[in-house]
């Protein structure tokens, strides 16, 4: 508590810093909605457990063989494509909202990945990739000897 109060008093209230903070916040908000800066696809959730990470992504309607996962060091790249439905002659769209085409996305994890042990499953349109931490990257516990 003391240190927090000290910091605020010490630096004083600076309106220009407040404005700068607000500007940053606005930029961040607009960056997500502006049409020229599309969000990365697919959206991913990352789950962690001890020495594993699990990446999930919603990718409905893709053939598992059209998905490609590669791992180098601490980076995992997911790429794939979804075929658009081909309409027959005489058929016409009332609305078309589902996307199609190719995508690729790379995520970096805070540790090196054991490439041989990466596994993935695709169920009900959701991809789940398990990324175990590399053995040599795991923290070593050091015993402290006491006399």
């Amino acid at each position, binding site marked *: 508590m003391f240190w927090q109060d000290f910091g605020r008093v010490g630096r004083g209230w600076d309106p220009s810093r407040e404005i700068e903070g607000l500007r940053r916040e606005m930029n961040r908000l607009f960056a997500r909605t502006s*049409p020229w800066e*599309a*969000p990365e*696809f*697919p*959206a*991913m*959730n*990352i*789950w*962690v*457990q001890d020495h*594993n*990470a*699990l990446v*999930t992504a*919603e*990718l*409905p*309607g*893709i*053939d598992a063989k059209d998905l490609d996962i590669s791992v180098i060091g601490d980076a995992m790249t997911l790429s794939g494509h*979804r075929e658009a*439905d081909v*309409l*027959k002659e*005489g*058929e*016409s*769209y*009332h*609305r*078309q*909202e*589902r*996307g*199609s*085409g*190719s*995508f690729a996305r790379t995520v970096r994890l805070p540790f090196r990945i054991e490439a041989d042990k990466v596994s993935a499953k*695709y169920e*009900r*349109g*959701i991809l789940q990739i398990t990324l175990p931490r590399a053995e040599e990257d795991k923290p070593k516990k050091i015993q402290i000897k006491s006399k």
Partner: protein
Amino acid sequence: MANTDVEKREAQSPSGTERTRSRRVYSPRVDIYEAKDAIMLVADMPGVDEKTVDITLEKNVLTITGAVEPDALEGYQLAYNEYGTGDYQRSFTVSDEIDRDRIMATVKNGVLRLTLPKSEKVKAKKITVRAE
């Protein structure tokens, strides 16, 4: 993907009604196209299968709903979150020309495909316009 608008959209519930389950509800993205003898509806609903998807046609309102179980993973903690999970719901008004008894639905890889056949009556009613 070619479509840059890739984020999930939350569904709008009709004014005055609330769902009993306090879960997020998303509006699935759909393609609807018309063939000669049927209207086809394709909806992206990742997380649903044939047991959890529900289709109703009441009067002329077609409603598709899908229940998605929370994806809490045993022993795992969510560290980084870009998309939410929740149920799906979306309604469309369809014209009377649908043959209700022959509606077909399949779900594969989180994609629902609905075939809404046009009724014989309507098909027969079609009038050809000739150019003079």
